[in-house]
């Protein structure tokens, strides 16, 4: 999987929507200050005699040019995808690019569960009246339709699934599309996975989502790598990144965020949600090797770090055994919550923002780290010029992904 031209692949545009802010201008200070939006979730369809804690996007603002006609029938995931793509699109000036040379990969599957349950509850006794547009909008690929129509993309667009690694899987696919020359520009998106109380309950029953332990203190519930963690806390989010070759970016006079220097995927051969130490070590080593990077060169790690009891412990051991415990490490999910399908892209974006800002964001609720020998960024942000970063994602079904980023400054 060695890529001789790897340094030529750049990230040149970024879009972010999350519970702590829509757009980089709002997201960046919130991230650096460790602001959060955790509370008992309120969005219709999220609770049924329950009090699941999570972080929800407070409101969405739409560009003027978005058609109300389209927004009326787009799911929440679809609307968030469109506004997020708009930011990345503008930043990378994609309006000036031949639309037949632009591709889009959307990471995530079963993204619109809340629409499904609301449609069911509304029409279960009068199925003959179900809205015809549901025949389009229930498919994840409707996000591709919405985005390609709104932005005039004429290359290709499809969805890819990799559970909580979907966001990184989308980036890996986008890399391949640019590398092979299929398109000049490929946008990778980690889409918003719109959970209902059904998924929340099942994820909690699995032992993956946090319990009621912090029901009276929602702000305390999300605590990756802390000894008192007891599962992940959901957070609505969506991220989009623009990937292109350096020569193409240069010809367009676009300034990059970072160079994609190494990447890898490794499967555990395991259908279940449990993490694999071997799989995580494997994917880290493959990504470093592909990037011609020694562990010592990595000076910042953005881990998967969900707050899962077993997952965090395995991840820390894998990072340590890959000789990476010297690097600064924090946990973006402690601030944003776990975006599931979106997480991989959102955390790449958090890494890019930290590179740009020369500052690392804090980790909320990291009162007693499970391993105190690590170089944690805890209560306050710290100044640091990232040179080489490593970002990790893992998903149910035994998928592990890793991406190395080199500062383009």
């Amino acid at each position: 999987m060695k890529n001789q031209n790897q340094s030529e692949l750049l990230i040149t545009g970024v879009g972010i929507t999350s519970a702590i802010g829509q757009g980089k201008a709002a997201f960046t200070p919130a991230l650096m200050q460790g602001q959060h939006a955790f509370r008992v979730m309120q969005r219709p369809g999220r609770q049924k005699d329950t009090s699941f804690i999570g972080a929800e996007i407070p409101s969405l603002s739409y560009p003027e040019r978005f058609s109300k006609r389209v927004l009326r029938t787009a799911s929440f995931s679809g609307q968030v995808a469109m506004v997020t793509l708009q930011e990345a699109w503008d930043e990378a000036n994609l309006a000036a690019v031949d639309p037949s040379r632009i591709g889009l990969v959307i990471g995530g599957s079963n993204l619109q569960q809340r629409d499904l349950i609301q449609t069911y509850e509304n029409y279960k006794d009068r199925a003959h009246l179900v809205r015809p547009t549901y025949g389009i909008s229930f498919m994840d690929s409707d996000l591709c339709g919405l985005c390609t129509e709104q932005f005039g993309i004429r290359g290709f667009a499809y969805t890819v699934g990799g559970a909580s690694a979907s966001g990184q899987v989308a980036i890996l696919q986008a890399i391949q599309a640019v590398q092979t020359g299929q398109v000049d520009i490929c946008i990778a998106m980690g889409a918003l996975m719109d959970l209902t109380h059904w998924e929340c309950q099942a994820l909690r029953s699995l032992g993956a989502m946090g319990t009621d332990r912090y029901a009276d203190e929602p702000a305390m519930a999300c605590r990756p790598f802390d000894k008192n963690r007891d599962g992940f806390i959901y957070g609505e989010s969506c991220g989009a990144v623009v990937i292109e070759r350096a020569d193409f970016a240069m010809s367009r006079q676009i300034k990059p965020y970072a160079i994609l220097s190494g990447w890898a995927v490794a499967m555990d051969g395991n259908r279940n949600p449990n993490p694999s130490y071997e799989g995580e070590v494997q994917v880290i080593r493959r990504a470093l090797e592909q990037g011609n990077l020694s562990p010592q060169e990595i000076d910042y790690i953005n881990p998967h770090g969900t707050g899962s009891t077993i997952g965090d412990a395995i991840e820390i051991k894998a990072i340590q055994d890959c000789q990476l415990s010297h690097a600064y490490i924090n946990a973006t999910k402690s601030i944003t919550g776990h975006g599931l399908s979106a997480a991989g892209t959102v955390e790449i974006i958090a890494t890019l923002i930290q590179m740009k800002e020369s500052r690392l964001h804090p980790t909320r609720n990291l009162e007693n780290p499970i391993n105190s020998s690590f170089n944690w960024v805890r209560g306050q942000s710290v100044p640091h010029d990232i040179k080489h970063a490593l970002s990790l994602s893992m998903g149910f079904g035994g998928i592990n992904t890793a991406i190395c980023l080199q500062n383009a400054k």
Partner: protein
Amino acid sequence: MKKEDIFEIIARNTCEVIPELEGHVFKPSDRLTELGANSVDRAEIVAMTMEALSLQIPRVELFGAKNIGELAEVLYEKSKSV
């Protein structure tokens, strides 16, 4: 419900599906296609109107209506027979 009321419901639903029509004065001779409704929009407008009228009829029975006036007429006849 009177035929005129059904016509108003169709006009209202058409405006909801195509917000650009806000302010348009609907006439019975208006054709949904000419108002900018694509096939999905037309299906949506009909479904919303059937929902408002609590009608349970096969959609095939609504085929043939050439404009909003005729659609209101067909729906009115069906609503009387329910």
